[in-house]
C-alpha cells in the first residue's frame, strides 16, 4: 500500500476570538485512501476543511499538502466540493464547465459530459434556476471530473433525496483516481460508512479518534454510525 503522506498537519490550532475552533490537531493522511471526517456542527470540521483549501490563512501550526502550505500550487492539486453553491448567478452549466476546463489542467471534459448525462443535466441550463438537488449534483460532477490528487467533499449527499444518494456514492467511487486521497465530511454516516478506509472523529476541535474502519468495527462490534452517536451524545 502506498503510504506517502500527502497531507501532514502538525499542531494545528485556530482561534476565533476566544473560541478555539481547532485545538492542536495532528494528522497524517496518505494517498489511495477514502477518509471520513466526522463530527457534529461546531466540531471544527468546516474550519479544518477551509484551512486545507486556503480559505482560512491565519492559523498556528503547520499544514502541508504535498509538501506545500496551502497556496496556488495546492489549489491545483485539490478538488473541493463545498457545502454551499458557489457559482455566480449569470452562469450556465456550459460557462462553469468552460471555467473549470480552462483553469484546471487535470479537468477531464469527457468525464464531465458523461456525468452531465448521468445526472440528466444539459449545457444550456442556468444554474440559478436549478433545484437544490440538481445544483449539488452539478457541483459534484465538476469536482469529480478533475483527476485530482486530493478530493475534499463537504456533505456530498447532504441536500440530495435518498434515491439519488446511491447514484452520487457510485459516481464518487467510479471517478476518483485510485492513487488519490478522498476526504468526505458528512453527517449521514450510515449511508456512506461502507465506503471509508479510515475515519476521523473531530470533537470540539480535537481529534478524538483516527483509525482504520474495519479495525474499529471489529474492536467495537458496532457500526461507525452507532459509535459516532455514542462518542458524541450530549
Amino acid at each position, binding site marked *: 500500500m502506498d503510504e506517502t503522506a500527502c497531507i501532514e498537519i502538525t499542531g494545528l490550532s485556530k482561534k*476565533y*476570538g476566544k473560541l478555539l475552533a481547532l485545538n492542536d490537531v495532528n494528522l497524517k493522511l496518505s494517498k489511495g485512501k477514502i477518509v471520513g471526517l466526522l463530527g457534529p456542527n461546531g466540531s471544527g470540521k468546516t474550519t479544518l476543511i*477551509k484551512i486545507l*483549501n*486556503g*480559505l*482560512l*490563512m*491565519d492559523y498556528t501550526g503547520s499544514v502541508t499538502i504535498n509538501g506545500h502550505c496551502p497556496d*496556488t*500550487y495546492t*489549489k*491545483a492539486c*485539490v478538488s*473541493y466540493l*463545498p457545502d*454551499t*453553491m*458557489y*457559482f*455566480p448567478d*449569470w452562469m450556465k452549466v456550459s*460557462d462553469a464547465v468552460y*471555467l473549470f476546463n*480552462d*483553469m*484546471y489542467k487535470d479537468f477531464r471534459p469527457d468525464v464531465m459530459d458523461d456525468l452531465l448525462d448521468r445526472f440528466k443535466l444539459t449545457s444550456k441550463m442556468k444554474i440559478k434556476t436549478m433545484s437544490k438537488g440538481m445544483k449539488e449534483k452539478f457541483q459534484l460532477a465538476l469536482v469529480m471530473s478533475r483527476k485530482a490528487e486530493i478530493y475534499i467533499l463537504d456533505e456530498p449527499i447532504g441536500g440530495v433525496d435518498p434515491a439519488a444518494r446511491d447514484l452520487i456514492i457510485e459516481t464518487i467511487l467510479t471517478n476518483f483516481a485510485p492513487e488519490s486521497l478522498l476526504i468526505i465530511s458528512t453527517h449521514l454516516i450510515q449511508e456512506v460508512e461502507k465506503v471509508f478506509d479510515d475515519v476521523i472523529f473531530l470533537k470540539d476541535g480535537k481529534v478524538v479518534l483516527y483509525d482504520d474502519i474495519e479495525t474499529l468495527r471489529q474492536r467495537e462490534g458496532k457500526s461507525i454510525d452507532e459509535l459516532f452517536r455514542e462518542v458524541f451524545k450530549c
Partner: protein
Amino acid sequence: MLIKTIKHEFLATYRRFGILYTGVILLAILATISLRNRVDFAGPIIALLAVGIIVCVVFLYYNIVATYEKMLFSTQGYLEFTLPVSTSDLLLSKIIVNVFWAVCSFLIFFVCGYFFLYALLSTEIFTQVYTEIGSAFNIAMQNIGFSSFRLAIEFLVSIILFNVSVAFCCAIVHTKYIKSAKKIVAVVVYLVLTFLVDMLRSGIPSVFKMSEFATSQYFQLPFNILIAVALFAITYYFLRYELEIE
C-alpha cells in the same frame, strides 16, 4: 494565468455593460434623429438619454463595488479563492477589467456627445464648431497646464484608486482584525480611508508650501499612484496571509 483570469473576469461582466451601452447608444441615435427632425417627443428622449448616461456612470461605480463585495462577502469567494490563481493575479485581473469598462464608458459618453452636437447643429456648422471646440478646449487646457493625455491618465488612476480602496475595505474586514458587522465596518473604513487620504493630499503640499499649480502638476498624480500601490500591497497581504472567508 493572468490572461486567463482577465478573460474570465471579462466574460463575467460583458453582458451587463453590453446591454447598458447598447441601450444608451440606441437612445442617443433616437435622440439625434428626433432632434434633427424637430419632433415633439425629442425632449423626453433627450431626458431619457441623460438618465441613461447617469445610469452608466452609477453602474460603473456600482460594478466596481460589486466586484469585491462578491469576491469576499458571498459564497462566490469559495470559487475565486480555490481556483489555482495567485492572489495578485486575482486582484489585478479585477482592477484591469474594471479599468477597461471605465475606458469604454468614457468612450460611450464621447460618442453620445458627438451624436448630441450633430443633432443640434447642421452638418457644416457642426464640423466647424466641433473642431473649434476641440482646439479651444486643448488651448485652454494647455494654458492651465493640462493635456488630454494627462487627463486620461488621471482618470485611469482615479478608477484604479477607487478599485483598490474598495478591495482594501472588503479585504480588511475578512481578517482576524474584524470579527463582526463586517459590511458596516467596511463602509466606515472606506470613509475613514478616503478622509485620511484627502487630508494627506491637501496637507502635504501645504507643509511644503507648494503653489496650486505645482500641486496639481507635480504632486497629485504621483501621490495618487503611490497610495494606489500601497493599498494594493496591503490588500494583497491581507488576502494572501490573513484571509478568513465565512
